[in-house]
């Protein structure tokens, strides 16, 4: 831990003090590094490399800073640096969709920034000039602060309804950038939610059930929305929306008294999702660029299955643990734990549907590339190796990392396996049915341009107006009036003045 309070502001410091920070630090930095290595080859031929690396480095630094921050201001600094520099990653390609997406991203990022700023101010003044996490956790919250914090950080975390930038920004950004955006930066928002809103606060308790509902809705919404899109990265983005829904549920649970039990699951979920989603985004990058041998599909299916929570995967362990948490946490009566478990199973079904849809779309993408687009070369292997590295971590994680190990072991029981599997089987059947019957929605339902972009454009027109209302310039020409007055002036000064004296004499005498 580095104490900077003497140099900077009171409580300023950097360090990986808590387990939370450590874990976040490890998986985030890992993901960033892998993405960097991936970029080395993946971005080798793009123009403006320098700019890419600059912003990549800046957002990396920001991300790391916010994780290592021991006080709110350092966090905020890191957060700002990260989200603003990520803009450079989003618009990197410079084409029209990237610019649009970037605009939306930036609008929302700035907005989130300022909401968070307001929340920080409120919090800091409540904490009486102290900025470190410890002191903040002692101070009770109020609803405004909670709302501002959730809105500000939620815009980064990207759950419904603050997700709108995700499906635009992720496809537009280069694959490694999307990987870190989805893997690391979203998690930064989540980390913020955990750090800013410490568990056990009585006001915060009131928010828990609603946040759980929100999480579920987000989870379901993400999947359903994804089914309407055919671009792999858009689907992946919606998958993130869906997955973050679960994370939000976990965060909300962590706000209850049961924080100690929830936090490991939350950490596990975040790490697991980060790695898996990173791998998927990287793979989609490779997939979009060249024809791949069939066995490369493995690189897709391994992380996808992990996210689908197939038994033996980390996903399975986490889902199971989540289900368990519902029963151990005290929740209001209308949130029946059985119903929640059912919802989770439904969620698993939906997730499975999403990935099956994604797999199909990836195949389509391959087919469109045509057969001749290059043989496997060194660059492809290099990139594939990066993905593989992540997948290895993914496989290794549930069995080596102590908290997750416990959970994984509990999933090995048959009932659990059944609970985990039936949604997948159902999903497979469903997909098969749909394929067989060739059910489809009318084509205009697919790949719709989000109305959000229109809003963003409207907003841009609003803040970059070509002209504004101005006070009408009064253009009165006084010259004729003046001329008329001048003509009135006597040309005979002497007589006029003398007459004036006499008149004045009379008038003044009368006045007297």
């Amino acid at each position, binding site marked *: 831990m580095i104490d900077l309070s003497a140099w900077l502001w009171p409580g300023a410091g950097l360090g990986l003090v808590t387990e939370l920070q450590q874990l976040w630090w490890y998986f985030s930095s890992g993901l960033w590094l892998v993405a960097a290595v991936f970029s080395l080859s993946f971005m080798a031929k793009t123009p403006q490399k320098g700019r890419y690396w600059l912003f990549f480095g800046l957002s990396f630094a920001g991300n790391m800073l916010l994780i290592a921050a021991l006080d709110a201001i350092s966090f905020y600094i890191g957060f700002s640096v990260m989200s603003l520099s990520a803009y450079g990653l989003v618009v990197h390609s410079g084409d029209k969709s990237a610019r649009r997406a970037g605009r939306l991203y930036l609008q929302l990022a700035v907005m989130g920034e300022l909401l968070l700023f307001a929340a920080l101010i409120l919090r800091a003044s409540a904490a009486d000039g102290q900025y470190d996490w410890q002191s903040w956790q002692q101070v009770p919250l109020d609803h405004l602060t909670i709302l501002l914090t959730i809105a500000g950080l939620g815009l980064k975390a990207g759950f419904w309804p603050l997700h709108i930038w995700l499906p635009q920004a992720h496809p537009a950004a280069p694959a490694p950038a999307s990987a870190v955006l989805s893997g690391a930066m979203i998690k930064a928002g989540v980390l913020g939610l955990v750090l800013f809103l410490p568990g056990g606060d009585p006001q915060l308790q009131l928010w828990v059930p609603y946040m759980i509902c929100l999480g579920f809705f987000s989870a379901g919404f993400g999947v359903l929305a994804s089914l309407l899109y055919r671009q792999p990265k858009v689907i992946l983005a919606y998958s993130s929306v869906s997955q973050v829904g679960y994370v939000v549920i976990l965060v909300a649970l962590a706000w209850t008294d049961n924080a100690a039990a929830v936090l490991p699951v939350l950490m596990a979920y975040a790490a697991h999702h980060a790695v898996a989603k990173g791998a998927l985004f990287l793979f989609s990058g490779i997939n979009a660029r060249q024809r791949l041998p069939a066995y490369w599909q493995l690189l897709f299916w391994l992380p996808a299955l992990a996210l689908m929570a197939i038994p033996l995967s980390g996903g399975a362990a986490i889902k199971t643990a989540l289900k368990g948490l519902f029963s151990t946490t005290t929740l209001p009566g209308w949130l029946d734990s059985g119903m929640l478990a059912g919802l989770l199973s439904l969620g698993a079904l939906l997730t499975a549907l999403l990935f099956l849809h994604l797999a199909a779309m990836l195949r389509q993408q391959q087919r469109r590339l045509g057969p001749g687009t290059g043989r496997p070369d060194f660059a492809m292997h290099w990139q594939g190796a990066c993905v593989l590295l992540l997948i290895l971590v993914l496989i290794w994680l549930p069995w080596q990392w102590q908290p997750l190990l416990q959970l994984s072991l509990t999933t090995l029981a048959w009932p659990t396996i059944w609970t985990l599997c039936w949604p997948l089987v159902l999903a497979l059947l469903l997909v098969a049915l749909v394929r067989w019957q060739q059910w489809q929605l009318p084509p205009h339902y697919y790949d719709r341009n989000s109305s959000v972009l229109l809003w963003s454009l409207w907003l841009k027109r609003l803040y970059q107006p070509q002209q504004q209302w101005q006070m009408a310039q009064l253009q009165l020409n006084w010259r004729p009036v003046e001329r008329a007055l001048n003509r009135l002036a006597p040309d*005979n000064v*002497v*007589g006029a003045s*003398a*007459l004036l004296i*006499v008149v004045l004499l009379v008038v003044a005498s009368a006045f007297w």
Partner: protein
Amino acid sequence: MVEFSSSLNLFLATAATLVAIGVYGFIVGPEPLRRIVALNIISAGIFMLMVVLAYRSAGPDAVSTLADPVLHALVLTGLVVAVSATAFALALLARLGKTTADRPEEPGP
């Protein structure tokens, strides 16, 4: 006594009327020369007023007593001042007439 005061009043009124006539002439008279004449009439009126006022102390019964010498002195001073100013004004006027004579289109005062 009555006669004295009535003729005094007569002269006073005349002096005042002279001033008024002069003022009228000064206001109206379009040529500068007439204005100068009018000014002289005004000053004559005022001086006459002074002389009449001086005459008060002479009185009807005491013929031997002289009129107010201070006022007389003032009138004398005033006369010289008036004639000086008139002379200067006339000189200016003469010069003006010479310069305007060459350019008849300039409207005369």
